[in-house]
């Protein structure tokens, strides 16, 4: 078992492209760490640097207690699972799982023991004699995982392993991977661009953009207390609405003022804005769609409905305010029509405030 530490890690390619910019990340032993971000953010490069498949331009990579910068990938005691979970087409499932161990010159008895154990964990014991073409997509992915498990690695490195599966299977495999992590009690580092995968699977999430770590925290903290506008916008679907406005004192409390309309803000957030000398100054006000409410009192922002999307349990309401587009998540039973005029307000406890220059949260 091992923890993984990335200390001031940089990756600069020959052409000068700076893919990873001095990141620091400590992945605890037995943790399920998810690296998430849009394409080109440096997450896969970081994973490949942990594996040793990509060289490090500067910084220190530590696995367990050992600096592994100069250690060959095969001596790092890691296993990798990729999106393209190809199996040897002419070999049985058993032989597919045994192949890597044979390369390592593992004794036959031990190979059998490890495969039987992995097959049991993955519930593929009955598939061991089959050829890959006789397996479904999900079963093949399990065999690919089995190939990694039998190596008995200290760290599993997974690069978008579910991306090739259809939506239903992906949801199922998500749960399987969480169970697998619990039963193996090993460190998992998992790369994805899918924020839902990150939220549902990670013990902690590392959000990356443009080669820089934006925030590392548990899923709840990432969702409820995003460090900046990028994290706030990337995590959560539909994504957070951003309004331009100000925080103002109002009596003993505080309000947000958007285009002359004031809406209540919780006192703690107002106090933080005041402490940072942001009262009356232009800010970005972030509100998640589920925290936008249809106002019963008639007080709030006057908006026009553009589109509604019924998702079964929820209703997404797209609306326009001063020519800009926003979204609210409502109860599916609400009757809201196209082009309807609405008045909306926000849950005062769930308003996020960001500095428009630095885009950092001021809460």
């Amino acid at each position, binding site marked *: 078992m091992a923890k993984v530490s990335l200390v001031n890690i940089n990756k600069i390619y020959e052409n000068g492209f700076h893919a990873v910019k001095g990141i620091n990340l400590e992945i605890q032993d037995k943790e399920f760490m998810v690296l998430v971000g*849009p394409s080109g953010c440096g997450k896969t490069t970081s994973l490949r640097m942990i*594996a040793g498949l990509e060289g490090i331009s500067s910084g220190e990579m530590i696995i367990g207690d050992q600096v592994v910068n100069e250690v*060959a990938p095969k001596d790092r005691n890691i296993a990798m699972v990729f999106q*393209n979970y190809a199996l040897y087409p*002419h070999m049985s499932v058993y032989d597919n799982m045994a192949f890597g161990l044979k*390369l390592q010159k593992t004794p036959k008895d031990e190979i059998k023991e490890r495969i039987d154990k992995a097959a049991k964990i993955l519930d593929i014991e009955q598939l061991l004699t089959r050829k890959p073409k006789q397996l479904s997509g999900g079963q093949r992915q399990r065999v690919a995982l089995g190939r990694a498990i039998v190596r008995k690695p200290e760290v599993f490195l997974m690069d978008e392993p579910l991306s090739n599966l259809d939506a239903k299977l992906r949801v199922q495999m998500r749960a399987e991977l969480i169970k697998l992590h619990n039963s193996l009690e090993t460190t998992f580092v998992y790369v994805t661009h899918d924020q839902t995968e990150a939220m549902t699977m990670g013990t902690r999430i590392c959000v990356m953009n443009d080669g820089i770590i934006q925030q590392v925290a548990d899923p709840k903290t990432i969702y409820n207390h995003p460090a900046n506008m990028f994290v706030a916008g990337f995590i959560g679907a539909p994504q957070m609405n951003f309004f331009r406005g100000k925080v103002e004192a109002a009596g003993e409390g505080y309000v947000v003022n958007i285009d002359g309309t004031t809406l209540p803000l919780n006192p703690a957030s107002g106090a933080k804005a005041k402490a940072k000398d942001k009262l009356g100054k232009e800010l970005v006000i972030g509100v998640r769609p589920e925290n936008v409410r249809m106002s019963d009192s008639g007080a709030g922002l006057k908006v026009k409905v553009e589109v509604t999307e019924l998702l079964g349990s929820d209703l997404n309401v797209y609306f326009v305010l001063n020519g800009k587009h926003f979204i609210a998540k409502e109860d599916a039973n609400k009757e809201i029509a196209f082009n309807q005029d609405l008045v909306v307000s926000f849950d005062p406890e769930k308003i996020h405030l960001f500095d428009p220059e630095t885009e950092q949260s001021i809460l």
Partner: protein
Amino acid sequence: MKDRLKELEILLECDIEYTTEQSATRRSNHTVFPVDGHHFIVIDRKLSATESKLVRYWLEKNITNESAIILEEGGYVQLSKLQRFPLNLWRVAFKESREDVLAILQSTFTKDVILEVSQNAFVILVSESPVTPAEVLSIIESEALTSVHIITGERIHHPEELRKAYLQLNMLYDLAHKLKQHSRVIRYEDLRFPLLLQSILKSQGKQTPNMINDSELEQTALVFFDHNLNITETAQALFIHRNTLIYRLNKLETVTGYDIRKFNDAISFYLSYLMHKINREIA
């Protein structure tokens, strides 16, 4: 010699014995070739004239591995007569774990010839691949734990094209390096157009079209092309709002005069872009 003969066995699909015994040379239905004054190689069946030529060529030229047959003018023709056409050449380059990589390739391409072209690269003559290049890459990287690049060449139909196809792999690598620096799978299909353009530019001298000097706009345009001019998909891939994308496309139009939402403008812009990139390298 024994290792080399294994490769010859795969190539000819036969069993070969390497011996000093004179008696072995008198076996019926076998083909015997003297190697030197003391050694013989004995093949367990009668060979065709082409196959015999190949073996003689092999011995006379003192070729150290099969790849040399391709690299040596003339020799590749002998080898190629034994191959099934059409086929593609795949070049698999790796950093370390040579033996493991070879074992993986032999297990994946059971019917195809695998040639060692350098200490860190194999070329496979792929008739019909059971797996995609990206899948081979991930098998090798996850099993042998070494970083890999794969280049797949143009599909060839005649033996005479084999050497050219082999040389084209290096050209593809260089071109990909100029255009898509981080791709670990380089496919001829993806570079057909730039390859053509490169040959035209080389034959006609250099021209430098006006290009944007804005990496954000350049990246936006390339992702837009990758997503077949689809606004929604491009915005998702870039993680920007579609209005931001539209703003950038408008800006690109202002700067370059090309509205790349239109097919004709898109192709003109893309041509200019490629010419600019390739020219820079030629210069």
